[in-house]
């Protein structure tokens, strides 16, 4: 009879166990080092630009050195805001329907398959669809509106899943108690479930916001690759220099990084690229930290009450 574990003596087994633990620890150590080196490299190589106000507020240059990323920073946040305004209500309602009204059955299966398909689509395919549907068919051109809708397609499945999980994590007894007291499902959802699930929802939304903020592939053919100079005193919504005009093209930070690296001719290309990447990284890290803090603060308020 052979030993199924392939180890002859307890002593050999113990040695092997120690060796395996050491190898695993080495792997984890290597990963941590790699992570720190990679993230540190991105932030460190752009650190000079990170505190350079003329870079953060200046306008990008096409051919000369010294360009800034002011409009790109604004565009990124504006696009994010619009995307959340569109995708949040839709995904909240969809998640409510899927968890409260129709958790099972053929219709739920179709909806879940659709959402899963959408979440697995490469973002470049979402961008191409956005170009076809919003830029060309609807005739909106390369615009913030087209970009925000493409980002909505990208963001919807993430948000629906996050909110669904948050709602499902609420103890069933709470819902049952609300229904037993004579509340309708809609009342139970809006007055009990959503408030209880709020910390998880907010955390999830902020984390998904970070992903939207850094997305580029879905935007290069929808929001476009040009950043018109913005004039913050211009409130003429049809002018391309009006920051709030949703029909103007808008290059974001992520798209800017891609564009200067693939087509850029400015002499200080690597510095601008590193600076923009550092700004983007800091924003994403901030989103993560804020998500955790807000989630924890809300949690404390809800449970203390």
């Amino acid at each position, binding site marked *: 009879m052979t030993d199924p574990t392939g180890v002859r003596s307890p002593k050999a087994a113990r040695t092997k166990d120690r060796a395996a633990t050491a190898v695993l620890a080495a792997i984890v150590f290597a990963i941590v080092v790699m992570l720190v080196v*990679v993230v540190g490299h991105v932030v460190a190589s752009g650190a000079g630009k990170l505190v350079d106000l003329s870079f953060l507020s200046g306008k990008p240059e096409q051919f000369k050195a010294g360009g800034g990323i002011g409009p790109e920073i604004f565009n990124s946040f504006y696009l994010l805001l619009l995307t959340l305004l569109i995708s949040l209500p839709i995904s909240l309602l969809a998640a409510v329907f899927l968890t*409260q009204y129709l958790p099972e059955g053929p219709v739920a299966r179709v909806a879940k398959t659709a959402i899963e398909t959408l979440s697995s689509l490469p973002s470049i395919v979402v961008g191409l669809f956005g170009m076809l549907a919003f830029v060309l068919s609807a005739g909106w051109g390369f615009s913030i509106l087209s970009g925000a809708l493409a980002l909505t397609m990208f963001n919807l499945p993430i948000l629906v899943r996050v909110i669904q999980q948050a709602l499902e994590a609420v103890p069933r007894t709470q819902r049952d108690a609300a229904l037993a007291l004579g509340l309708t499902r809609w009342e139970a959802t809006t007055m009990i479930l959503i408030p209880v699930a709020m910390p998880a929802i907010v955390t999830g939304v902020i984390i998904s916001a970070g*992903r939207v903020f850094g997305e580029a592939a879905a935007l290069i053919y929808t929001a476009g690759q040009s950043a018109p100079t913005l004039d913050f005193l211009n409130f003429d919504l049809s002018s391309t220099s009006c920051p709030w005009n949703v029909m103007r093209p808008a290059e974001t930070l992520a798209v800017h990084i891609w564009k200067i690296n693939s087509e850029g001719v400015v002499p200080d290309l690597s510095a601008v690229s590193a600076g923009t990447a550092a700004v983007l990284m800091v924003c994403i890290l901030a989103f993560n930290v804020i998500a955790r803090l807000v989630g924890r603060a809300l949690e404390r308020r809800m449970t203390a009450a």
Partner: protein
Amino acid sequence: MALSTTSKRRLERRGQFISGLAVLLVVVLVCTLIFMVCSRGIATFTRDGVPLGSFLTGRTWNPHQSNELGQPTVGALPMVLGSFGVTLLSCAFSLPFALGASIFVVEVAPTFGRKFFRPLVELLTGIPSVVFGVIGLTMVVPWTRSWAGGTGYGILSSSIVLALMIFPTMMSLTADALSAVPDSYRDGSYGLGCTRWQTVCHVVLPTALPGILTATIMGMARAFGEALAVQMVIGNAAQMPSSLLTPASTLTSIITTSMGNEAMGTVYNDVLWSLALILLIMSMAFILLVHLVGRKGSSND
């Protein structure tokens, strides 16, 4: 708050209707997307008369020229091979690390994993793909150039960048799969006198295998569909990949670089949509695979 029964019922019906509408909207959007990409993607075959076989197996990519049969030379094999090459290679790079780290944080040091390592890895999930592209350009490409020679641009560099990118996805899902193995299994194994490593190899890993497979497939799906990070470091030469170190291209990289230059309705543009259609079909195939693995995993229990 006290509403009359009729207005309560009206509110309830309205809420159900609106939330149902939101779900319907999502479903319609997805169907529209699939329909539009398909209808553009098949134009190469229906309108431009390119046989499907020669599209998938052709080795020359030059949509501006026609071959001796008068058909445009649109062999997509270089890009298909490039895409599969970077996907498999990046998975091969990432999987040992993901598996090793998951075993460590689940079996060896759970507190370290929960408090420190997994939040750190989650942070990595949020890094935008263009930033991975920049990391590729400023770190991986020079490194490959000095260690392996060549220009530094190519499948090897892209795979390393993608391996970094998909690591968080694969590691999180793998760790979840290991955590889902019931502790009673471990206790049984320890009770029989097995060491931790024996327990991991003979009890935990076999039980978690479907979950680990799912994690791998999800990582592959992400690598296959990634556009910009790959496009920035692969060199974008639409030729048959001859080695890991020469510039190559993937489906996504060619779409990204060419879509903006070719007018709608031209053969070149049609073929790019066909490449997008391959991406769409592949991403659905990955989901299907995940479901098959999941079903097999649950039937084994």
